[in-house]
C-alpha cells in the first residue's frame, strides 16, 4: 500500500485539535495559519513533528499606518508587526505559512532556534532590521547593520535617510594621512 502523506488540512485539523481553533486562510493553494504569539513555539514545534521539518524563512512586516489593517482577525487585531514563518515538508513537498503578531512597545516572540538551527541568522536579521526580540535566542546580535548602530531601519517610522548615522565617522584629511 503506497504511503499517503497527510494533507495540510489534516495537519491544521490536528493543530486545532491540540491548541483549539486557529485562524486560517488560503491563497492560491497556499495555507496561512495565524498563531497567537504566546503559543507560537508550541505550535511550530507541533508542526515540525507533524512533517513540516524545513524552515524556509523568517521575516517580518511592519503594518504601521497600513491602509488596511492586516487581516481582520482577532489574533492580530491592532498588532504592528507581523512575523512570517515559511515552513515546508521535505517528504510531502507541502508548504505552510505561519503568521505571528507582535506589538509595541516591546515586540517579543519566542525563538525557534531550538527547533531549527537555520533560524539563528534569520531571527538575527529580523531583530536587526525590525527590533523584534526573540526570547531564548542564543546569540541575538545585529546581523547586517554595524554593531554600534542603534536603530532598526526597516521600521516604517525610521526616516529613509537615517538619523545622521552616516556622518559620524572621523574625517581623514590630507594632513593626517
Amino acid at each position, binding site marked *: 500500500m503506497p504511503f499517503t502523506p497527510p494533507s495540510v488540512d489534516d495537519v491544521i485539523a490536528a493543530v486545532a485539535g491540540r491548541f483549539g481553533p486557529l485562524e486560517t486562510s488560503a491563497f492560491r493553494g497556499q495555507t496561512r495559519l495565524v498563531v497567537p504569539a504566546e503559543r507560537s513555539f508550541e505550535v511550530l514545534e507541533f508542526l515540525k513533528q507533524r512533517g513540516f521539518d524545513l524552515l524556509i524563512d523568517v521575516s517580518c512586516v511592519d503594518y504601521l499606518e497600513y491602509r488596511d489593517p492586516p487581516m481582520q482577525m482577532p489574533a492580530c487585531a491592532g498588532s504592528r508587526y507581523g512575523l512570517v514563518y515559511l515552513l515546508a515538508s521535505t517528504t510531502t513537498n507541502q508548504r505552510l505559512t505561519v503568521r505571528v503578531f507582535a506589538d509595541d512597545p516591546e515586540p517579543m516572540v519566542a525563538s525557534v532556534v531550538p527547533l531549527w538551527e537555520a533560524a539563528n541568522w534569520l531571527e538575527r536579521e529580523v531583530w536587526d532590521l525590525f527590533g523584534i526580540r526573540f526570547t531564548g535566542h542564543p546569540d541575538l546580535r545585529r546581523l547586517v547593520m554595524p554593531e554600534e548602530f542603534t536603530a532598526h531601519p526597516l521600521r516604517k517610522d525610521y526616516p*529613509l535617510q537615517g538619523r545622521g548615522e552616516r556622518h559620524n565617522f572621523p574625517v581623514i584629511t590630507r*594632513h593626517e594621512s
Partner: protein
Amino acid sequence: MAVSDLQLPENVVVSRLDALASWCRKNSLWPMPFATACCGIELMATGASKHDLARFGAEVFRFSPRQCDLMIVAGRVVMKMLPVLQRIWLQMHEPKWCISMGACASTGGVFDTYAVVQGIDRFIPVDMYVPGCPPRPEQLIQAIIDLQDKIQREGTITGREFDTAGRQARKRALVEITSPLTVDAARNPVLQRELAAQAGSLAGRS
C-alpha cells in the same frame, strides 16, 4: 651663474628635483582598485587590453594598499564599509592620490538612504572626480591624465603640496542632525589606533 652657462656634456639634462620626482611619480601610478559596484567593471575594462591603461603607466593594479599610490574608489560605499575604506587609505604609502569614480562614490548617486555614504570626499581626501553612472573607460583615462598633469604641476619631492591649509578646509564632512541614536565614532577602536599612530609619527617628523 645661470644654468644655461654651464658647459654640459651631450647626454646630461638639467632639471629641478621636484619636477623630476613628479615626472617619475606621474608615470608610474599604481592603482588600488577599491571596486564595490558596477563602476568596478568599467575599471576592469579600463585596465584590459582594449583601453589599455598601460599606455599611461598605471596598469599595475595591486590589491595590497602597501604597494599602491592611487586609490580608485569605484562604486557606492556603505557606512559599514567606510571604516575599511579609511583604513586602507591610511595604509597606503605617501605620496598618494585618490580618484572618486562615478556618481555613487562622488555623491552617493541615487542611493540617498541611511546606509550609503553621500560622497567619499566627506571622509577621505579626493583629487579627481569622474562623473558618470558608470563612467566610460575613456572618462577614467581622462581623469588619470588630468591627475598626471596635476602631479607634474603641483608635485614636490617632499610632498609639501599635501599640507596646504586650504586643501584641508575643503574636505570637511557635513555636520548633520545630532541625535542620541547615532553611531559613536569614538567607539571604533581600530580607526582611533590608526589615527593616533599617524599623529605620533607626524609629531616625530616635524
